[in-house]
């Protein structure tokens, strides 16, 4: 067994694989950042709001105000460095930190695919993606034909986790037995040409999409891993993600997944892509070819054991984290305890309506808060059905009104949430003073139990 592992770790593969991945990743990030900027979201999400929702333990990640633009500039420059492979390691580290910092500023914008980018860029810091077709090669005049096989497999493993866990999460009674929430979402897509008024209105299509989506997510990693089904699997990836891009406003995610899936192809394919790219940059390419490199067959890590241990821990965390919900007694989709960072995508249709009552505990007098005074529309919408945000906002309100001179106050939430087309139900115990509840990873006893049952992962 140990011998097998050792043999595996010694295996090598074409360095062009990670080079292609690096270039695709860099270009995608570059475009994503520019797109985000051009839509004015830097201001509306990170600068304009008076109050930002924080991840527990990361309250220190404050908005930089106008300087948040600088943070994006850093991200964009890093994406350029990554694409051309100049000072790759430094660029990747800076990208990881700046991108992650941006995500930490505001929790209401949490998306699984932003989290994916964060952890993928962390992983890439430790991988030799600049050993072929990069400025680093050009400057150091050293290029490597091969890199360790496990470095490419690490990316594959991360993708396998994303797909497979997303598939597991779909094995639940709402998704498979009731076709929820697709049954609610699809009829509202009537404005999509051709299929909108026809297929998407049919109930059997909602079931077919639910089951198909589940089988797709569970099987795609294996279709891509296995050589004979790889091309078919890739066609599926393209079809599936383009389809979701048409149906849902999910930004860059589908395209990122499509290009990432290229990493499963063999070295020849990647060599061809590099050759093609070489042709594309012919003007500079002539300069390129005048330099003579030491062509070295295999790249060896300087601190191999360190990198391997870090990634080992990284993957153990990735494998375990999505199952942390088991530790909570509440219904996962309802209370969302252990919901994030687990590749649960598109699983719930949730709408909340949450108001806060400030009570003077001495006199009993009370008043209601106008959420629009403190939060943006997006924040109100997200906060209204996520208990950790409801608590955080209640504490913010508490501080605000105490600063205004209110003494001995309690804050109570009147919260109603509708989950996957069910009638709204009281979400937060209206008798609980939220100011007395602390932020923690413990079970939140003040979430009212879900009156229905959703079985499954």
């Amino acid at each position: 067994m140990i011998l097998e592992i050792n043999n595996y770790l010694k295996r090598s593969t074409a360095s062009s694989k990670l080079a292609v991945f690096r270039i695709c990743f860099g270009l995608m990030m570059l475009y994503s950042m520019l797109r985000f900027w051009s839509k004015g979201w830097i201001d509306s999400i990170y600068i304009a709001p008076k109050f930002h929702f924080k991840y527990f333990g990361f309250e220190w990640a404050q908005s930089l105000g106008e300087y948040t633009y600088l943070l994006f500039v850093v991200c964009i420059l890093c994406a350029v460095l990554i694409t051309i492979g100049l000072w790759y390691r430094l660029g990747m580290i800076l990208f990881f930190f700046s991108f992650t910092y941006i995500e930490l500023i505001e929790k209401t914008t949490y998306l699984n695919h932003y989290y994916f980018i964060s952890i993928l860029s962390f992983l890439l810091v430790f991988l030799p993606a600049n050993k072929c077709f990069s400025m680093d090669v050009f400057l150091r005049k050293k290029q490597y034909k091969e890199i360790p096989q496990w470095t490419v497999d690490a990316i594959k493993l991360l993708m396998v986790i994303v797909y497979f866990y997303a598939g597991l999460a779909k094995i639940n009674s709402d998704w498979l037995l009731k076709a929820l929430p697709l049954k609610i979402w699809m009829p509202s897509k009537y404005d999509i040409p051709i299929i909108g008024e026809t297929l998407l209105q049919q109930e059997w299509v909602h079931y077919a999409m639910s089951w198909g989506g589940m089988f797709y997510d569970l099987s795609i990693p294996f279709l891509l891993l296995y050589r004979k089904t790889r091309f078919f699997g890739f066609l599926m990836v393209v079809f599936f993600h383009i389809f979701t891009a048409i149906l849902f406003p999910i930004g860059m995610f589908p395209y990122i997944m499509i290009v990432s899936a290229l990493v499963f192809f063999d070295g020849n394919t990647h060599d061809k892509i590099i050759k093609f790219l070489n042709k594309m940059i012919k003007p500079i390419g002539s300069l390129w070819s005048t330099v003579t490199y030491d062509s070295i067959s295999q790249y060896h890590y300087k601190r191999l054991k360190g990198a391997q241990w870090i990634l080992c821990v990284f993957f153990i965390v990735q494998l375990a984290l999505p199952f942390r919900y088991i530790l909570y007694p509440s219904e996962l989709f309802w209370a969302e305890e252990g919901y994030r960072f687990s590749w649960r995508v598109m699983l719930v249709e949730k709408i909340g309506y949450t108001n806060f009552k400030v009570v003077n505990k001495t006199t009993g007098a009370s008043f209601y808060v106008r959420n629009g005074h403190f939060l943006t529309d997006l924040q109100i919408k997200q906060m209204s059905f996520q208990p950790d945000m409801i608590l955080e906002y209640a504490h913010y309100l508490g501080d605000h009104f105490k600063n205004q001179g209110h003494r001995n106050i309690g804050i109570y939430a009147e919260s109603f949430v509708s989950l996957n087309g069910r009638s709204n139900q009281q979400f937060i115990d209206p008798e609980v003073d939220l100011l007395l509840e602390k932020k923690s990873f413990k079970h939140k006893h003040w979430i009212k139990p879900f009156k229905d049952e959703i079985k499954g992962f």
Partner: protein
Amino acid sequence: MFKKIVVFSLISFAFLIGCSDDSSSSDTVWEQKSQMLTNWSDNFIIPNYQNLSDRLSDLENSVAAFNTDPSLQSLEDVRDFWLQAYKTWQHVEMFNIGPAEQTFYHLKMNVFPTSVSNIENIISAGNYSILDNSPYNSAQGFPAMDYLLFGIAEDDASIINLYSSNPNYGNYLTEIMDRMVINTNYVVNEWSSYRSAFISSVENTATSSANKMTNDFIYHYEKGFRANKFGIPVGIFSGGNIYPDKVEAYYNKNVSRTLALEAMDAIKMFYNGNGNPSLKQFLDNFATDEMPNLSSDINTQLDLCKSSIQGLDSNFVNQLNNEYLEMAATYDIIQAGTVLLKTDMLSVLQIATDYVDADGD
């Protein structure tokens, strides 16, 4: 091989679409939404705005008559037409869309409580153009008229005396009357060209008229109806400090309940569509298995609201001064309706509730 797959999938795709078509003899969603928008524009928005314009025209004539000859009779006429127009307004307030939205029309018609100090300052200074600025929204429209017709002096005789002795008062009344007429007629006229854009904007986007109108309707229920008419006066947002002076038509002292009931009827009529497609029919067509009776549940809640309002004093000022808790109870019933509209209804209708444009996952 690849070609075969493509051909096969195209054929099966065409087959599926063909199959799914024949089952639906009823209209497509697109057509249903289109009918709903046509119903909204032709049977609700345009006729109600037109109605308001007609009532304001009557009011304008009576104001002119009153100014020529201030008397108890001519004052009573103005007051009658003011109430007629104010009741019609309750059927228009939710349609803050298109030309009305662009011109901030609603903010110039019914922001209350009115600002007495601003009104008095402008009357003595005669600088009417200042009314164009948004801080002076509350110095015009129906609430300002409420003050000018009922609250400007102790009793009817002294009101008439004021208008007879000082033309500044009559001039100001004419000024805000003109503004109401001009602003309303602008909206009415614009609708003749805006109508086609309104009813053709059927797609499901945050800015389509189908979605905007639904959002406007909910916003009106929550803000214009629930908060302005009940929540704010009864102290929901102010620690139980009641504000009788923030009641609609405060100076009239007698019609706050009439106006609230009129608004209630307008809300219910719009929701039910008056026999034509509206939100209710949509909820019926798209009802989930989990809440098959949502559309009638909403009607039940709206009926509860109505009967609860009917139980209040015809003058909300008296209600607040005597038994404000009864009005707080009415507010709670109305609030339960907000919950239904903002969670259950929106969940079924799948309409973007805001103009936030952001990625999801």
